[in-house]
């Protein structure tokens, strides 16, 4: 069969997914990224050291071999862990984007088949009807009132007619092309498939999007920065001490082993895992708040966002037309536009209203889909266009069962709305059995309706349409139009019974009924109202220093009105045009600096040079871009990024995907969004609600703060691990802590407490801060590094050494004896080394004491890390202000530290290679005074920082 041949040639009719990095590459990246390369270097050095030793002496100690093996295991395990976390979060979205299989009705060989849409091939004839997604790019062959929604493609939300005439050379503009993935709203059509899969218009845009590069997230840059600092410190200290060791006449092999120790001590092996877990915890928390994060690092990006470019429709607004205002009896009434309007409270006593409500109800072709009796009115699905649906719901709320009433007022004839007439008309029987007259109702563009009227109804009385009432009408029309609302006019006429008896046959073609000298009843204006949570969210953004820019395809007036009502343009700020109007001077004469707000149309944007756009973005705090094409969104995003801003962009259409990719964080709409947008985005808003972005930002900022705490916590003990090696080299004491014990701190006791810090609550209102500056507010600044390394870290080392000296002293080796004892201490054939009391020790007895020293130092660091995790709960507030017990996970972490240490020290750790020994209970407490000093000292630091903001202390000690 021919179709199968073409299918084989062209491939299935689906968008090919964006090119994924192969899993193995992702995995390998985790293996060599960051600190892993340092650890690899350490492992290789270990093996080299072992080989050198082995070549000299066949019975060389296997310690270096074991250590190298352990290092490789550590790298692989942490790499696998990071990979697993990453994969888990991508899988969430993968399941999300999986397209629901769609079927298409295709005519082949004169017979109708229902086949999966992906089997469509070039030249197939397909039938579509209202509600269907168009299964491929098609050329319309026949059409009965077919309207399509091209919003996902062009951003225009107006339904568009499709017919079989070519109206434009550009296929995008021509009326006879239906595009893949757009929806047919109503009517039916048949069409021939002209493009499938990636060759469709949408497919081409999607592949364009995937070619826009995606650069590193801010947190990735920060972590890289941090890795550079730590690796720099590790390598430089390593090299310096390598040289020192050589100068001190150590063997090269020993110097190499020292180098390994120094690198190991400096690298926070557990940090990558802790950061990954913290980010994924936050991602989970955000998902609960309707922000689904695809890329873990995007969690933090959202927190550093400084500009949000938001769509209007659906994100800021409810994405449904709603009756906003009514005008009758020369008065404007406001209608309730909230999400769940229960009752309308405007004055409904006037007889004019009775008439108006009848017209609204009858002159309307929209209907509720059946089977929704239990669904609240506002949530019911309506068949019909947006305005009609709004009016239908409005009358349902105000008057009750519309369908029943329509039945009582049987429709005799109707003329649907079309763009030539600009009105809609229908003729009904009345529900009054005694009244045999027909009622003609009409609605449409207000000026067209007014033309057809000669009277106007005021308080139920028909009055001639004089100049004053026309003026009143004009004023109301202007006012409502100025609010950006779509205004409809309503009029009616009771046809005289004698001319139009009840058997009169109305004919739409010949229009054998009057369509002039009607009675004007009123105006109703419709708007897509803002979501009720948005104004608060915008205020929050503003106090958080985030600029909200509206980018919409809508008319500038509508856009501005919505911007005003949600606060994107605040109540007291003006645009250049507003100032000109107020001062009654020409627009050109207004000082542009005075205007905080700006409304820029797509046409104006087209004319602007990049410099002008920069100036616009820099000088106005409140900006609305209206009538923009999705392509211009990309221009706006780039402009914002030139301001060094971190830009979040929302989008739903396929055409938005390049902008979503380009943005620092692309946010796709979960409900309204197209799959292409979801694929391009970093985050998916499940409820399409702007205020969810704000809660996301809050989480993102919190995790940035908490990552600082985690890193500060993790870095501290690195000094306590490093100093022993330095003292060991310089002062020749027996080694205070072994490499394995270091790994047990980094990957054992410290892991859970550091993750627990991710649960820490914010210290103050993080939404009152400016967004962090990309280049100035680093994750790891020098204050953090210095405070952790040179203050708390050194304190911890001193505490560790105290414990170390204590266990040596109580066994007989006093501190003065230990200095420069190393050559004798490590001499294998010296089996009668004298201690401070004259007792003699064999090598193994000393070795065991050395392990006891490791254990004591390990326990001391663990005890002080308990104090460290407590002080890291806050950076400026007192721990007691924060609540010592509010974050339960911290205590889980502390318990884990103690339990792991107890397990290691109580036998489990005494298996070969691990080298832990059992420590007497009292030596678990030697470092406690130091732990207390750490706590007190940090409280003191925070106290001064709080009391002297801006002082030297604040600048030096606040990280």
């Amino acid at each position, binding site marked *: 069969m021919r179709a199968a041949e073409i299918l084989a040639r062209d491939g299935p009719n689906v968008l090919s997914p964006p090119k994924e990095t192969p899993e193995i590459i992702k995995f390998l990246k985790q293996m060599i990224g960051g600190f892993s390369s340092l650890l690899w270097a350490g492992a290789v050095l270990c093996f080299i050291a072992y080989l050198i030793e082995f070549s000299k002496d066949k019975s060389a100690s296997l310690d270096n071999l074991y250590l190298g093996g352990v290092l490789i295991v550590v790298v692989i395990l942490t790499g696998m862990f990071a990979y697993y976390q990453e994969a888990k979060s991508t899988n969430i979205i993968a399941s999300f984007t999986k397209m629901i299989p769609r079927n298409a009705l295709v005519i082949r060989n004169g017979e109708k088949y229902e086949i999966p849409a992906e089997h469509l091939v070039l030249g197939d004839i397909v039938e579509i009807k209202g509600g269907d997604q168009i299964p491929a790019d098609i050329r319309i062959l026949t059409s009965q009132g077919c309207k399509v929604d091209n919003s996902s493609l062009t951003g225009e939300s107006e339904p568009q007619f499709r017919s079989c005439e070519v109206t434009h050379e550009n296929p995008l503009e021509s009326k006879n092309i239906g595009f893949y993935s757009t929806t047919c709203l109503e009517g039916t059509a048949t069409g021939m498939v002209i493009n499938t899969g990636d060759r469709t218009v949408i497919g081409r845009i999607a592949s364009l999007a995937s070619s826009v590069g995606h650069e*590193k997230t801010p947190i990735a840059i920060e972590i890289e920065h941090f890795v550079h600092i730590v690796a720099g410190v590790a390598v430089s200290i390593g090299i310096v001490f390598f040289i020192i060791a050589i100068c001190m006449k150590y063997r090269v092999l020993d110097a190499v082993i020292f180098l390994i120790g120094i690198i190991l001590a400096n690298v926070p092996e557990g940090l990558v895992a802790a950061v990954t877990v913290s980010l994924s915890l936050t991602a989970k928390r955000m998902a609960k708040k309707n922000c689904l994060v695809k890329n873990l690092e995007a969690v933090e990006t959202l927190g550093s966002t400084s500009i949000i470019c938001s769509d209007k429709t659906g994100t800021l607004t409810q994405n449904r037309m709603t009756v906003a205002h009514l005008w009758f009896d020369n008065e404007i009434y406001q209608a309730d536009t909230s999400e769940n309007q229960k009752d309308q409270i405007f004055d409904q006593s006037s007889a004019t209203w009775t008439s108006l409500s009848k017209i609204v109800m009858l002159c309307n072709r929209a209907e509720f889909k059946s089977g929704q009796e239990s669904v609240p009115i506002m949530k019911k699905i309506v068949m019909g266009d947006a305005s009609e649906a709004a009016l239908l719901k409005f009358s349902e709320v105000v008057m009750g069962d519309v369908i029943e009433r329509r039945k009582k007022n049987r429709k005799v004839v109707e003329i649907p709305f079309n763009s030539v007439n600009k009105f809609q008309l229908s003729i009904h029987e009345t529900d009054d059995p005694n009244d045999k007259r027909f009622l003609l109702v009409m609605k449409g563009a207000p000026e067209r309706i007014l033309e057809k009227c000669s009277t106007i109804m005021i308080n139920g009385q028909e009055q001639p349409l004089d100049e004053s009432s026309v003026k009143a009408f004009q004023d109301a029309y202007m006012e409502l139009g100025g609010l950006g609302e779509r205004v409809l006019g309503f009029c009616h006429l009771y046809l005289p019974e004698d001319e139009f008896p009840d058997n009169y046959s109305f004919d739409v073609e010949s229009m054998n009924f009057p369509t002039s000298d009607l009675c004007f009843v009123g105006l109703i204006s419709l708007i897509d109202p803002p979501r009720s949570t948005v104004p608060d969210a915008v205020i929050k953004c503003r106090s958080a220093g985030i600029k909200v820019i509206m980018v919409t395809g809508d008319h500038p007036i509508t856009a501005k009105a919505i911007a005003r009502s949600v606060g994107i343009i605040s109540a007291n700020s003006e645009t250049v045009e507003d100032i000109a109007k107020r001062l009654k001077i020409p627009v050109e004469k207004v000082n542009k600096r005075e205007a905080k707000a700006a409304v820029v149309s797509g046409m104006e944007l087209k004319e602007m040079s990049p410099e002008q756009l920069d100036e616009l973005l820099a000088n106005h705090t409140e900006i609305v871009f209206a009538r923009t094409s999705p392509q211009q969104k990309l221009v706006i995003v780039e402009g914002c990024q030139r301001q060094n801003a971190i830009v979040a962009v929302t989008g739903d259409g396929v055409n938005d995907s390049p902008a979503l990719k380009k943005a620092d964080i692309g946010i796709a709409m979960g409900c309204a969004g197209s799959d292409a947008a979801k694929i391009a985005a970093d985050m998916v808003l499940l409820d399409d609600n702007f205020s969810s972005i704000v809660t996301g930002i809050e989480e993102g900022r919190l995790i940035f703060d908490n990552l600082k705490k985690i890193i500060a916590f993790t870095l501290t003990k690195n000094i306590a691990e490093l100093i022993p090696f330095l003292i060991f080299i310089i002062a020749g004491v027996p080694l205070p802590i072994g490499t394995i014990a270091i790994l047990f701190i980094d990957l054992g006791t410290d892991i859970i407490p550091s993750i627990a810090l991710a649960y820490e609550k914010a210290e103050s209102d993080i939404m009152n801060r400016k967004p962090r500056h990309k280049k100035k507010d680093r994750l790891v600044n020098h204050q953090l590094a210095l405070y952790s390394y040179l203050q708390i870290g*050194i304190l911890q080392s001193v505490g560790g050494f105290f414990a170390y000296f204590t266990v040596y002293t*109580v066994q007989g080796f006093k501190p003065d004896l230990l200095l420069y004892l190393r050559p004798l201490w490590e001499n294998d054939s010296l089996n009668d080394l004298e201690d401070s009391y*004259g*007792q003699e020790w064999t090598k193994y007895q000393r070795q065991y004491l050395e392990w006891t020293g490791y254990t004591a130092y390990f326990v001391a660091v663990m005890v002080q890390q308990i104090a460290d995790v407590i002080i890291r709960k806050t950076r400026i507030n007192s721990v007691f202000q924060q609540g010592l017990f509010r974050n339960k996970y911290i205590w889980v972490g502390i318990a884990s530290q103690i339990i792991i240490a107890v397990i290691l020290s109580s036998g489990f750790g005494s298996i070969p290679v691990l080298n832990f020994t059992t420590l007497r209970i009292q030596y678990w407490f030697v470092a406690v005074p130091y732990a207390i000093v750490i706590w007190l000292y940090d409280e003191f630091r925070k106290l001064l920082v709080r009391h002297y903001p801006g002082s030297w202390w604040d600048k030096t000690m606040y990280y």
Partner: protein
Amino acid sequence: MVTEKDKRTGGQVWEQWKEFVWNPRTHEFMGRTGSSWAFIILFYLVFYVFLTAMFTLTMWVMLQTVSDHIPTYQDQLATPGLMIRPKTENLEVLVNLSDSSSWNEHVQILDKFLEPYNDSIQAQKNDVCRPGHYYEQPDNGVLNYPKRACQFNRTQLGDCSGLNDPTHYGYSTGQPCIFIKMNRVINFYAGANQTMNVTCAGKRNEDAKNLGDFTMFPANGNIDLMYFPYYGKKFHVNYTQPLVAVKFMNVTRNVEVNVECRINAVNIATNDERDKFAGRVAFKLQIIKT
């Protein structure tokens, strides 16, 4: 996200670096002004002085808690180790009969090692004790009363005493003496009131064959109980460690022989898997004759 990668030329980097080191506009050296540096240095000075003081204080307190004459814990010295003299690199005693410099060093070490054992010195400093009994010296109320030591005379070592010995402890004739000593452990009652002695043997069968005969001084390799307990170097000043000398009479020439000596005492285990020197000592003996 597009950040223009600021590609900086080498010159710019150098300029930036120069400005970082000394910024003439703000008078900043390495990113800080003079007063800022002064503050920082002062702060760290104070901080580290405080730390040192704290460390010193805690160390002082800790050292106050330990006794002068006996360490707080001795659990790691439950089994005393054995050791040989002369102590050589890797415990290999190499004697080249045609090259006196190969053993001269050993002889010098032994001369020095045995000097305190000279009978005259022993008689002058130490007591004559009752053999077969521990020489216990309780404090009897006087805190840290100085302790006396028992005599171990060099002459007790017989042929290995090196006194009037032209063969230099047998090294010049290929019949070397090896001295075995047991590590000192404070308050350790070695032997648990029963006699103990040192025995030696080749490690493996062929070693035993190559080892040949040997003689022990004092006879039988006995170590007397009177040299125990040891009271620590501070109060047991002239303590003389008992020795056992082993004279190897006819070791097979030009072969490396693995010798192991162990102590036979009730309360000293000699089979520790991990500590190869607990209650025993292993060494290599090689006598080269070309």
